[in-house]
C-alpha cells in the first residue's frame, strides 16, 4: 500500500541523505488525524502571531513616532487585538448598491485563503524528524517537495482577491487601487521568483525543509546570495503591498484603495490576509536566507533553543524591518515603482541567477563540490 509519506517525499534533496523515515505512520486514518492536529495547532499559532503582530506594529511604530501606541486595553495594550476583533465582528456588513454581489462577497475569501494556506509548508522544525508526542504534533503540516513553488503560486493567487474587490466594489478609487495592484504584484512576482532561483540552484531542491538542512550543513544563504536577498526583501515588501509600496491602498491618494467599500469582518479578512502574507514572506526570508529553524551555530547555548523559537526570532526580525521601513519612508509613485522593478531589480536578479548558475557549473566540473 502506498503510504501518504511516499507522496510527499518524491525527489528528496540530492545532497542530503534521508537519515530517517519522515513519517513512519502508514495508517492513512491516523496519518490524517495527526495532520489535522498539527494543522489545528499551527494555524492557531499563526493567527495568534498575526493578531499580536498588529499590536507589535502599533507599538513599534508609536515608539518611533514619539507616541505610546495602544496602552489602555489590558496591560501595555495587550488586549487591543482582541478588542479590535470583537469590534470588527460587531460592525455592520454593508454591500454597496452598485457592487457586483457574488464577486464582492468572494473577494475577501479569495484574498484570505491563499495567505493562510501558504503556512502549510513552512517548517517550524526539522520536518524529517518525527515531531512531538510520537508524531502527533509534526513540525510542518506538509513536507512538500515543491514547497517553494507552492508558496509562490499562492502568493500569485492572492492578488485575485484584490482585483476582484476593486472590480466589484463599484467605486473608482477601488478600481484604481486594484489596477495598480495587479500591475504591481505581477511585476514583483517575477523578481520575487527570480531572486529565489539562486538559492534553489545552490540548494538543489525545492523543499523548504531541505533548503534549511543544506544551510545547516554549509552556511546561511544570505552570504553567497546577498543580492538575491536584497531583491527578495524589496520584492517581498512590494508583493505584500506594504510601505513604501502600498500604492493599492495608498491612504492619501486612493483613500483606502481596493478595500474602500468593505466593512466589518469582510474588511477584517483583507486586513488579516495582508498581515498573514507579510508573515509568510518574512518566514520565507528566514527560511531561504537565514537558516530557518536551524540555530546559527550548532553548539551548546544555541542548540538548546528549539527550532520554532529560532524561526520565530528570525522572522520577527523581518517584521521589525517592515515596521521600521513603514515608519521611515514615503511612498513611491506608480511609474517609479514599475521603473524600480523592471530597470533595477530585474537585471540584478537575472545577473545573480546567471552568476550563481555559472559558479555552480564550474564548481561541479572542477570538483570543488559535488
Amino acid at each position, binding site marked *: 500500500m502506498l503510504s501518504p509519506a511516499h507522496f510527499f517525499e518524491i525527489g528528496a534533496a540530492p545532497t542530503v541523505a534521508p537519515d530517517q523515515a519522515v513519517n513512519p505512520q502508514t495508517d492513512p486514518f491516523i496519518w490524517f488525524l495527526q495532520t489535522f492536529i498539527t494543522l489545528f495547532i499551527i494555524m492557531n499559532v499563526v493567527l495568534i502571531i498575526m493578531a499580536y503582530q498588529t499590536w507589535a506594529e502599533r507599538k513599534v*511604530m508609536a515608539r*518611533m*513616532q*514619539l*507616541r505610546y501606541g495602544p496602552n489602555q486595553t489590558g496591560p501595555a495594550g495587550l488586549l487591543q487585538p482582541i478588542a479590535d476583533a470583537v469590534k470588527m465582528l460587531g460592525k455592520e456588513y454593508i454591500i454597496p448598491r452598485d457592487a457586483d454581489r457574488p464577486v464582492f462577497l468572494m473577494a475577501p475569501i479569495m484574498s484570505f485563503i491563499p495567505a493562510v494556506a501558504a503556512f502549510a509548508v513552512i517548517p517550524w522544525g526539522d520536518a524529517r524528524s518525527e515531531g512531538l508526542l510520537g508524531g502527533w504534533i509534526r513540525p510542518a503540516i506538509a513536507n512538500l517537495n515543491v514547497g517553494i513553488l507552492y508558496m509562490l503560486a499562492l502568493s500569485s493567487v492572492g492578488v485575485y482577491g484584490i482585483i476582484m474587490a476593486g472590480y466589484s466594489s463599484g467605486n*473608482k*478609487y477601488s478600481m*484604481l487601487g486594484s*489596477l*495598480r495592484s495587479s500591475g504591481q504584484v505581477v511585476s514583483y512576482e517575477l523578481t520575487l521568483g527570480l531572486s529565489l532561483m539562486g538559492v534553489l540552484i545552490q540548494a538543489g531542491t525545492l523543499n523548504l525543509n531541505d533548503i534549511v538542512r543544506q544551510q545547516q550543513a554549509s552556511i546561511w544563504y544570505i552570504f553567497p546570495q546577498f543580492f538575491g536577498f536584497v531583491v527578495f526583501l524589496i520584492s517581498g515588501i512590494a508583493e505584500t503591498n506594504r*510601505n*513604501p509600496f*502600498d500604492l493599492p491602498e*495608498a*491612504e*492619501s*491618494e*486612493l*483613500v483606502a484603495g481596493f478595500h474602500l467599500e468593505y466593512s466589518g469582518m469582510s474588511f477584517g479578512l483583507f486586513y488579516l490576509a495582508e498581515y498573514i502574507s507579510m508573515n509568510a514572506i518574512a518566514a520565507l526570508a528566514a527560511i531561504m536566507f537565514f537558516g530557518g529553524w536551524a540555530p546559527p551555530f550548532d553548539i551548546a547555548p544555541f542548540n538548546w533553543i528549539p527550532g520554532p523559537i529560532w524561526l520565530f526570532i528570525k522572522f520577527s526580525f523581518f517584521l521589525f524591518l517592515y515596521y521600521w521601513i513603514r*515608519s*521611515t*519612508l*514615503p*511612498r*513611491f*509613485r*506608480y*511609474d*517609479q515603482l514599475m521603473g524600480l522593478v523592471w530597470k533595477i531589480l530585474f537585471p540584478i536578479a537575472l545577473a545573480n541567477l546567471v552568476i550563481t548558475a555559472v559558479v555552480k557549473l564550474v564548481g561541479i566540473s572542477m570538483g570543488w563540490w559535488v
Partner: protein
Amino acid sequence: MSQTPTNEHTETHRQSSERRMRLNMGPQHPSTHGVLQIVLDLEGEVVMRCDPVPGYLHRGTEKLAEERYYNQIIPLTDRLDYVSAFNNNVAFVMPVEKLLGIEIPERAMWIRVILMELQRIASHLIWYGTSLMDLGAVTAFLYAMRERELILDIFEMACGARLTYSYCRVGGLLSDVPPGFEEKVAEFVKAFPKAWKEYTDLVSKNPIFMDRTMGVGVVTPEDAIDMGLTGPSLRGSGVDWDIRKNEPYYGYDLLDFAIPLGTKGDCYDRYLCRMEEMLQSNRIVEQALKFLKPGPVKVDDPKIALPPKELSMSQAEAMQRHFYQVIHGFNVPVGETYGKIEGSKGELGFYIISDGSSHPYRMKIRAPSFVNLQSLPLMTEGRMVSDVITCIGTIDIVLGEVDR
C-alpha cells in the same frame, strides 16, 4: 473662421471621452486638507483635466464682518487660516490702524513680530507634516507636532489660547505678555535649529522623496507672476518677492534675514524654500527679542483702547468709556485702505472701506491660499494622480482661507 469638426475629429473625441474617467476627489478625502473638491478627468492614472472646486467651507466672513465692530471681527479672522491665526489678526488690524492714523507702541509691535514669525514656523511645521503624510511618510507629521507644541505653549502663555488667539486689538494687543515669556521664546529659538536638522535629515535627501517631488509641479517664474502666486509658492519659482523685504512693515527693515529662493519651481524647490524659511523666521525671532523693551502694549487713545480693568472698576469715567466701547465700538474715519503682510502662505491682505461708522462698509480678504490654489491645474495636468496629492501638499492651502 470656425472649423467644422470632421467625422474623424468627433470620432477621436468620442473615443477619448469614453476612455476618460471622472473622479471626484473630495470634498471628503484624507489629503485635500479639508473640504476641497477636485474634479479629475483621468485616462488611466494620467490627469487630463484638473478642476479645483472650493466653496464647501464658505462661511461668509466678509459679509459677517460688515455687521460687526472692528474688534469683533478679529475672532472671525482667526478662523480663516486657522493654522496661522495670529498672522490673520495682524493683517486685519493693520489697515484699520492705518485708517485711524495711529501708531502702535514699540513693544506691541515687536511682540507682534515675534509671534508672527513663531506662527510662521508653526504653520510651516503643519505644512511639513501634512505634505509628507500625503506622500506616505507618517512619522514626519508627528515629529513636526513636537516642535509646534512648544510654539503653541508660547502662545498659550501669551494669551491663553492655543489655536484661535484673538490676541491683537486695534491699537495694540489685548494685554502684555506675562513675565517669563522672553525666556521661553529664547529657549525655543535656541532649541529649534537642532530639531530642524532632524527634519531635514529625515526627509531632504531621501531618494524616494526626491523622486516624488523633483520635476513635479513645475511653475515657471512667468506663470507664477501671471497667476498672482505669493509666498513660498512664488519664491520656489525663483521670483524674489517678499513683502517683509520689499515693502517692510513693523521694523522688518531693522532685522537681518535672507529670502530663500528656488531655481526650478518644482515641488522640491518649494519644499526647500519653506524649510529654509523656518530657520530664517527663527533668526528673526532671535533678533526681535533684543528689541523688546518694557512699555505699553496699547495705544494711548481712550477712544480706541479699553481702559485698564482696575480703572474701569474704580472710576466712573473709565467705566463709562468701557461701557460705550463694548456696546458701540469706535468710529473709523471715512476712507478705504489696503493692508498686507507676508503671511505664512503668501500675501495676506485686507481691503477695508469705512463709511465713518463703527463697522466696515465692506471688507475684502486677499487670501493667499485661494490665489495659490489656481496654480493646481497648471501643475498637475498631464501628470499622475499621485502628483496631484504632492502638488496640493506643496501649495500649502488651508481651506478656511480658500473659502472664507
